[in-house]
Protein backbone atom coordinates (compact mmCIF):
# COMPACT_ATOMS: atom_id res chain seq x y z
CA UNK A 1 0.00 0.00 0.00
CA UNK A 2 1.24 3.50 -0.78
CA UNK A 3 1.64 5.91 2.15
CA UNK A 4 -0.25 8.81 0.60
CA UNK A 5 -3.90 8.08 0.10
CA UNK A 6 -5.46 9.15 -3.18
CA UNK A 7 -7.71 12.20 -2.90
CA UNK A 8 -10.05 11.29 -5.65
CA UNK A 9 -11.45 8.20 -7.25
CA UNK A 10 -12.67 8.51 -10.78
CA UNK A 11 -15.67 6.49 -11.75
CA UNK A 12 -17.42 6.54 -15.09
CA UNK A 13 -21.07 7.50 -15.18
CA UNK A 14 -21.78 3.88 -15.94
CA UNK A 15 -19.94 2.76 -12.81
CA UNK A 16 -21.82 5.27 -10.71
CA UNK A 17 -25.05 4.01 -12.23
CA UNK A 18 -24.13 0.46 -11.32
CA UNK A 19 -23.45 1.44 -7.73
CA UNK A 20 -26.88 2.96 -7.78
CA UNK A 21 -28.38 -0.14 -9.29
CA UNK A 22 -26.73 -2.70 -7.02
CA UNK A 23 -26.79 -0.79 -3.79
CA UNK A 24 -29.71 1.58 -4.12
CA UNK A 25 -31.99 -0.93 -5.82
CA UNK A 26 -32.68 -2.81 -2.58
CA UNK A 27 -32.85 0.50 -0.77
CA UNK A 28 -35.67 1.66 -3.03
CA UNK A 29 -37.49 -1.53 -2.17
CA UNK A 30 -37.66 -0.24 1.39
CA UNK A 31 -40.92 1.51 0.49
CA UNK A 32 -42.50 -1.71 -0.81
CA UNK A 33 -41.44 -3.50 2.37
CA UNK A 34 -43.14 -0.87 4.51
CA UNK A 35 -46.36 -1.16 2.47
CA UNK A 36 -46.48 -4.94 2.98
CA UNK A 37 -45.52 -4.94 6.65
CA UNK A 38 -47.75 -2.07 7.78
CA UNK A 39 -50.46 -3.28 5.40
CA UNK A 40 -50.57 -6.79 6.88
CA UNK A 41 -50.71 -5.29 10.38
CA UNK A 42 -53.70 -3.19 9.27
CA UNK A 43 -55.41 -6.19 7.72
CA UNK A 44 -54.75 -8.25 10.85
CA UNK A 45 -56.65 -5.66 12.89
CA UNK A 46 -59.63 -5.50 10.57
CA UNK A 47 -60.03 -9.05 9.26
CA UNK A 48 -61.16 -11.44 11.95
CA UNK A 49 -61.31 -14.78 10.22
CA UNK A 50 -57.94 -15.08 8.49
CA UNK A 51 -55.55 -13.96 11.17
CA UNK A 52 -53.28 -17.04 11.20
CA UNK A 53 -52.71 -16.72 7.47
CA UNK A 54 -52.15 -12.94 7.66
CA UNK A 55 -49.76 -13.40 10.55
CA UNK A 56 -47.82 -15.96 8.55
CA UNK A 57 -47.57 -13.56 5.61
CA UNK A 58 -46.51 -10.72 7.89
CA UNK A 59 -43.77 -12.88 9.45
CA UNK A 60 -42.65 -13.95 5.98
CA UNK A 61 -42.40 -10.32 4.84
CA UNK A 62 -40.41 -9.34 7.91
CA UNK A 63 -38.00 -12.24 7.39
CA UNK A 64 -37.49 -11.43 3.69
CA UNK A 65 -37.01 -7.75 4.46
CA UNK A 66 -34.51 -8.50 7.21
CA UNK A 67 -32.45 -10.66 4.83
CA UNK A 68 -32.61 -7.95 2.15
CA UNK A 69 -31.29 -5.23 4.43
CA UNK A 70 -28.68 -7.50 5.98
CA UNK A 71 -27.40 -8.08 2.47
CA UNK A 72 -27.52 -4.35 1.71
CA UNK A 73 -25.50 -3.62 4.86
CA UNK A 74 -22.92 -6.23 3.81
CA UNK A 75 -22.68 -4.77 0.29
CA UNK A 76 -22.28 -1.23 1.56
CA UNK A 77 -19.60 -2.37 4.02
CA UNK A 78 -17.81 -4.20 1.23
CA UNK A 79 -18.01 -1.08 -0.95
CA UNK A 80 -16.60 0.99 1.89
CA UNK A 81 -13.65 -1.37 2.31
CA UNK A 82 -13.01 -1.43 -1.43
CA UNK A 83 -12.94 2.37 -1.64
CA UNK A 84 -10.58 2.39 1.32
CA UNK A 85 -8.33 -0.14 -0.40
CA UNK A 86 -8.34 1.87 -3.60
CA UNK A 87 -7.71 5.10 -1.73
CA UNK A 88 -4.53 3.71 -0.20
CA UNK A 89 -3.52 1.77 -3.27
CA UNK A 90 -4.64 3.36 -6.54
CA UNK A 91 -3.56 0.19 -8.35
CA UNK A 92 -6.18 -1.73 -6.43
CA UNK A 93 -8.58 -3.21 -8.90
CA UNK A 94 -10.80 -5.19 -6.59
CA UNK A 95 -14.50 -5.27 -6.45
CA UNK A 96 -16.85 -2.93 -4.67
CA UNK A 97 -19.38 -5.67 -4.31
CA UNK A 98 -19.95 -9.22 -5.38
CA UNK A 99 -21.54 -7.94 -8.55
CA UNK A 100 -18.58 -5.65 -9.25
CA UNK A 101 -19.18 -2.49 -11.17
CA UNK A 102 -15.45 -2.28 -11.65
CA UNK A 103 -15.52 -4.86 -14.39
CA UNK A 104 -17.08 -2.33 -16.69
CA UNK A 105 -14.68 0.31 -17.82
CA UNK A 106 -16.36 2.72 -20.12
CA UNK A 107 -14.26 5.85 -20.25
CA UNK A 108 -17.28 8.07 -20.84
CA UNK A 109 -18.27 10.92 -18.56
CA UNK A 110 -15.79 10.27 -15.76
CA UNK A 111 -17.01 11.40 -12.37
CA UNK A 112 -14.22 12.32 -9.94
CA UNK A 113 -15.30 11.64 -6.39
CA UNK A 114 -13.58 12.60 -3.19
CA UNK A 115 -12.29 9.26 -2.04
CA UNK A 116 -12.65 9.78 1.71
CA UNK A 117 -16.13 11.21 1.24
CA UNK A 118 -17.18 8.18 -0.79
CA UNK A 119 -15.69 5.81 1.78
CA UNK A 120 -17.52 7.57 4.61
CA UNK A 121 -20.67 7.61 2.58
CA UNK A 122 -20.70 3.84 2.14
CA UNK A 123 -20.07 3.55 5.87
CA UNK A 124 -23.19 5.65 6.54
CA UNK A 125 -25.20 3.54 4.14
CA UNK A 126 -24.01 0.35 5.88
CA UNK A 127 -25.01 1.83 9.26
CA UNK A 128 -28.43 2.77 7.92
CA UNK A 129 -29.03 -0.70 6.51
CA UNK A 130 -27.88 -2.25 9.81
CA UNK A 131 -30.34 -0.04 11.70
CA UNK A 132 -33.15 -1.16 9.38
CA UNK A 133 -32.13 -4.81 9.86
CA UNK A 134 -32.15 -4.46 13.64
CA UNK A 135 -35.50 -2.67 13.59
CA UNK A 136 -37.04 -5.41 11.41
CA UNK A 137 -35.66 -8.10 13.70
CA UNK A 138 -37.12 -6.37 16.77
CA UNK A 139 -40.45 -5.96 14.98
CA UNK A 140 -40.51 -9.68 14.15
CA UNK A 141 -40.04 -10.47 17.82
CA UNK A 142 -42.78 -8.05 18.84
CA UNK A 143 -45.19 -9.51 16.30
CA UNK A 144 -44.43 -13.00 17.54
CA UNK A 145 -45.06 -11.94 21.14
CA UNK A 146 -48.28 -10.19 20.17
CA UNK A 147 -49.61 -13.07 18.09
CA UNK A 148 -52.41 -13.78 20.55
CA UNK A 149 -53.55 -10.17 20.79
CA UNK A 150 -56.74 -9.17 19.13
CA UNK A 151 -54.99 -6.48 17.20
CA UNK A 152 -51.54 -5.22 16.43
CA UNK A 153 -52.45 -1.55 16.39
CA UNK A 154 -49.85 -0.47 18.92
CA UNK A 155 -47.07 -2.36 17.13
CA UNK A 156 -48.37 -1.03 13.81
CA UNK A 157 -48.31 2.63 14.95
CA UNK A 158 -44.80 2.35 16.32
CA UNK A 159 -43.61 0.48 13.24
CA UNK A 160 -45.11 3.14 11.01
CA UNK A 161 -43.36 5.93 12.94
CA UNK A 162 -40.05 4.09 12.73
CA UNK A 163 -40.48 3.39 9.02
CA UNK A 164 -41.19 7.09 8.42
CA UNK A 165 -38.02 8.10 10.25
CA UNK A 166 -35.90 5.53 8.39
CA UNK A 167 -37.50 6.61 5.11
CA UNK A 168 -36.45 10.22 5.71
CA UNK A 169 -32.90 9.04 6.36
CA UNK A 170 -33.02 6.99 3.18
CA UNK A 171 -34.08 10.01 1.13
CA UNK A 172 -31.23 12.07 2.59
CA UNK A 173 -28.71 9.34 1.79
CA UNK A 174 -29.84 9.10 -1.83
CA UNK A 175 -29.79 12.88 -2.20
CA UNK A 176 -26.31 12.97 -0.68
CA UNK A 177 -25.05 10.35 -3.12
CA UNK A 178 -26.49 12.20 -6.12
CA UNK A 179 -24.98 15.48 -4.92
CA UNK A 180 -21.62 13.83 -4.36
CA UNK A 181 -21.62 12.45 -7.90
CA UNK A 182 -23.14 15.58 -9.42
CA UNK A 183 -25.50 13.32 -11.27
CA UNK A 184 -29.25 13.57 -11.58
CA UNK A 185 -31.40 10.48 -11.28
CA UNK A 186 -32.47 10.75 -14.92
CA UNK A 187 -28.81 10.55 -15.98
CA UNK A 188 -28.32 7.53 -13.73
CA UNK A 189 -31.32 5.83 -15.27
CA UNK A 190 -29.96 6.57 -18.73
CA UNK A 191 -26.55 5.18 -17.80
CA UNK A 192 -28.17 2.05 -16.35
CA UNK A 193 -29.92 1.46 -19.66
CA UNK A 194 -26.66 1.72 -21.61
CA UNK A 195 -25.67 -1.85 -20.80
Amino acid at each position, binding site marked *: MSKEPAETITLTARQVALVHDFIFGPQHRF*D*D*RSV*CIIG*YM*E*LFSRVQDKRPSLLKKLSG*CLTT*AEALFKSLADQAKSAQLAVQAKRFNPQYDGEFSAESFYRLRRPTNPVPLKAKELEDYFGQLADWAKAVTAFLHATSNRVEQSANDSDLSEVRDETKREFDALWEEQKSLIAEFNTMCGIER*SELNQACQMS
Partner: protein
Amino acid sequence: MDTALAPTSRKSSSKPVIFAVSGDEDMADFYRAALEHCVKPEPEVHCFLRAEVALRAIESASRQPDLLISHYLLHSKKDSSMTGLELIKRCKEAAPKLKTVLVSGLDLKEIKQLLEVSDTQPDAFLHVPFDPEHLASVVEPLFHGDARSAGQITQ
Protein backbone atom coordinates in the same frame (compact mmCIF):
# COMPACT_ATOMS: atom_id res chain seq x y z
CA MET B 1 -41.21 -16.92 -11.41
CA ASP B 2 -42.57 -16.72 -14.94
CA THR B 3 -46.18 -17.44 -14.32
CA ALA B 4 -49.02 -15.55 -12.78
CA LEU B 5 -49.51 -16.19 -9.11
CA ALA B 6 -52.73 -18.16 -9.02
CA PRO B 7 -55.83 -16.37 -7.76
CA THR B 8 -57.17 -17.66 -4.47
CA SER B 9 -60.56 -18.29 -5.99
CA ARG B 10 -62.43 -18.34 -9.26
CA LYS B 11 -65.79 -18.62 -7.62
CA SER B 12 -67.77 -16.18 -9.66
CA SER B 13 -67.33 -14.74 -13.10
CA SER B 14 -69.41 -11.73 -12.03
CA LYS B 15 -66.66 -10.51 -9.72
CA PRO B 16 -64.57 -7.64 -11.04
CA VAL B 17 -61.21 -8.95 -12.21
CA ILE B 18 -58.00 -7.17 -11.24
CA PHE B 19 -54.53 -7.86 -12.60
CA ALA B 20 -51.78 -6.65 -10.26
CA VAL B 21 -48.20 -6.48 -11.54
CA SER B 22 -45.21 -6.02 -9.28
CA GLY B 23 -41.69 -7.37 -9.65
CA ASP B 24 -41.68 -8.17 -5.94
CA GLU B 25 -43.28 -11.41 -4.77
CA ASP B 26 -44.20 -10.13 -1.29
CA MET B 27 -45.78 -7.06 -2.81
CA ALA B 28 -47.77 -9.10 -5.34
CA ASP B 29 -49.01 -11.31 -2.53
CA PHE B 30 -49.95 -8.28 -0.49
CA TYR B 31 -52.04 -6.84 -3.32
CA ARG B 32 -54.12 -9.99 -3.35
CA ALA B 33 -54.74 -9.89 0.41
CA ALA B 34 -55.45 -6.15 0.51
CA LEU B 35 -57.69 -6.06 -2.56
CA GLU B 36 -59.69 -9.13 -1.56
CA HIS B 37 -60.23 -7.90 1.99
CA CYS B 38 -60.75 -4.18 1.47
CA VAL B 39 -62.30 -3.60 -1.95
CA LYS B 40 -66.06 -3.80 -2.47
CA PRO B 41 -67.32 -5.65 -4.42
CA GLU B 42 -64.71 -8.27 -3.64
CA PRO B 43 -62.62 -8.73 -6.77
CA GLU B 44 -60.94 -11.75 -8.28
CA VAL B 45 -57.25 -10.89 -8.16
CA HIS B 46 -54.53 -12.25 -10.42
CA CYS B 47 -50.97 -11.27 -9.54
CA PHE B 48 -48.02 -11.20 -11.92
CA LEU B 49 -44.33 -10.80 -11.34
CA ARG B 50 -43.48 -10.16 -14.99
CA ALA B 51 -44.94 -7.56 -17.30
CA GLU B 52 -44.75 -9.81 -20.36
CA VAL B 53 -46.76 -12.54 -18.66
CA ALA B 54 -49.46 -10.06 -17.64
CA LEU B 55 -49.58 -8.68 -21.18
CA ARG B 56 -49.89 -12.14 -22.72
CA ALA B 57 -52.66 -12.98 -20.25
CA ILE B 58 -54.59 -9.85 -21.27
CA GLU B 59 -54.06 -10.49 -24.97
CA SER B 60 -55.28 -14.06 -24.70
CA ALA B 61 -57.94 -13.70 -22.00
CA SER B 62 -61.45 -14.88 -22.79
CA ARG B 63 -62.61 -12.33 -20.26
CA GLN B 64 -60.60 -9.11 -20.08
CA PRO B 65 -59.73 -7.83 -16.60
CA ASP B 66 -61.55 -4.73 -15.39
CA LEU B 67 -58.50 -3.17 -13.85
CA LEU B 68 -54.73 -3.33 -14.17
CA ILE B 69 -52.54 -2.18 -11.28
CA SER B 70 -48.88 -1.94 -12.19
CA HIS B 71 -45.75 -0.67 -10.53
CA TYR B 72 -43.74 1.77 -12.64
CA LEU B 73 -40.41 0.07 -12.00
CA LEU B 74 -40.77 -3.58 -12.92
CA HIS B 75 -37.45 -4.54 -14.33
CA SER B 76 -34.63 -6.24 -12.57
CA LYS B 77 -31.50 -7.89 -13.90
CA LYS B 78 -33.28 -11.02 -15.03
CA ASP B 79 -36.64 -9.58 -15.73
CA SER B 80 -38.51 -7.41 -18.14
CA SER B 81 -37.17 -4.16 -19.50
CA MET B 82 -40.71 -2.82 -19.75
CA THR B 83 -41.82 -0.10 -17.35
CA GLY B 84 -45.29 -0.04 -15.84
CA LEU B 85 -46.21 2.84 -18.11
CA GLU B 86 -45.19 0.88 -21.20
CA LEU B 87 -47.15 -2.09 -19.91
CA ILE B 88 -50.22 0.12 -19.44
CA LYS B 89 -49.87 1.41 -22.99
CA ARG B 90 -49.63 -2.07 -24.49
CA CYS B 91 -52.46 -3.44 -22.35
CA LYS B 92 -54.71 -0.54 -23.36
CA GLU B 93 -53.99 -1.34 -27.00
CA ALA B 94 -55.15 -4.91 -26.37
CA ALA B 95 -58.07 -3.93 -24.11
CA PRO B 96 -59.12 -0.30 -24.71
CA LYS B 97 -61.72 -0.26 -21.91
CA LEU B 98 -59.25 -1.45 -19.30
CA LYS B 99 -58.88 0.88 -16.29
CA THR B 100 -55.35 1.30 -15.04
CA VAL B 101 -53.50 2.37 -11.91
CA LEU B 102 -49.82 3.21 -11.92
CA VAL B 103 -47.95 2.67 -8.65
CA SER B 104 -44.58 4.15 -7.77
CA GLY B 105 -42.42 5.24 -4.89
CA LEU B 106 -40.42 7.56 -7.13
CA ASP B 107 -40.39 11.23 -6.34
CA LEU B 108 -43.69 12.80 -7.42
CA LYS B 109 -41.88 15.45 -9.46
CA GLU B 110 -40.10 12.71 -11.37
CA ILE B 111 -43.34 10.80 -11.99
CA LYS B 112 -45.03 13.97 -13.25
CA GLN B 113 -42.18 14.48 -15.71
CA LEU B 114 -42.46 10.88 -16.91
CA LEU B 115 -46.21 11.24 -17.42
CA GLU B 116 -45.81 14.56 -19.23
CA VAL B 117 -43.72 12.97 -21.96
CA SER B 118 -45.78 9.79 -22.14
CA ASP B 119 -48.52 9.29 -24.73
CA THR B 120 -50.36 7.01 -22.31
CA GLN B 121 -51.89 8.09 -19.03
CA PRO B 122 -53.07 5.79 -16.25
CA ASP B 123 -56.58 6.38 -14.90
CA ALA B 124 -55.19 6.76 -11.41
CA PHE B 125 -51.89 6.99 -9.60
CA LEU B 126 -50.92 5.46 -6.27
CA HIS B 127 -47.88 6.74 -4.45
CA VAL B 128 -45.87 4.33 -2.31
CA PRO B 129 -46.07 3.95 0.65
CA PHE B 130 -49.85 3.50 0.95
CA ASP B 131 -52.16 1.57 3.25
CA PRO B 132 -54.91 -0.91 2.29
CA GLU B 133 -57.66 1.69 2.89
CA HIS B 134 -56.06 4.10 0.47
CA LEU B 135 -55.60 1.35 -2.11
CA ALA B 136 -59.33 0.59 -1.85
CA SER B 137 -60.24 4.28 -2.16
CA VAL B 138 -58.30 4.49 -5.42
CA VAL B 139 -59.59 1.23 -6.90
CA GLU B 140 -63.31 1.31 -6.05
CA PRO B 141 -64.26 4.46 -8.03
CA LEU B 142 -62.66 2.92 -11.12
CA PHE B 143 -65.11 0.01 -10.98
CA HIS B 144 -67.88 2.58 -11.26
CA GLY B 145 -66.16 4.37 -14.12
CA ASP B 146 -65.26 7.37 -12.00
CA ALA B 147 -61.61 8.06 -12.67
CA ARG B 148 -61.95 11.59 -11.31
CA SER B 149 -62.38 10.45 -7.72
CA ALA B 150 -59.61 7.89 -7.99
CA GLY B 151 -56.00 8.69 -7.07
CA GLN B 152 -54.44 11.66 -8.81
CA ILE B 153 -50.92 12.94 -8.52
CA THR B 154 -50.87 15.60 -5.89
CA GLN B 155 -47.87 17.15 -4.24
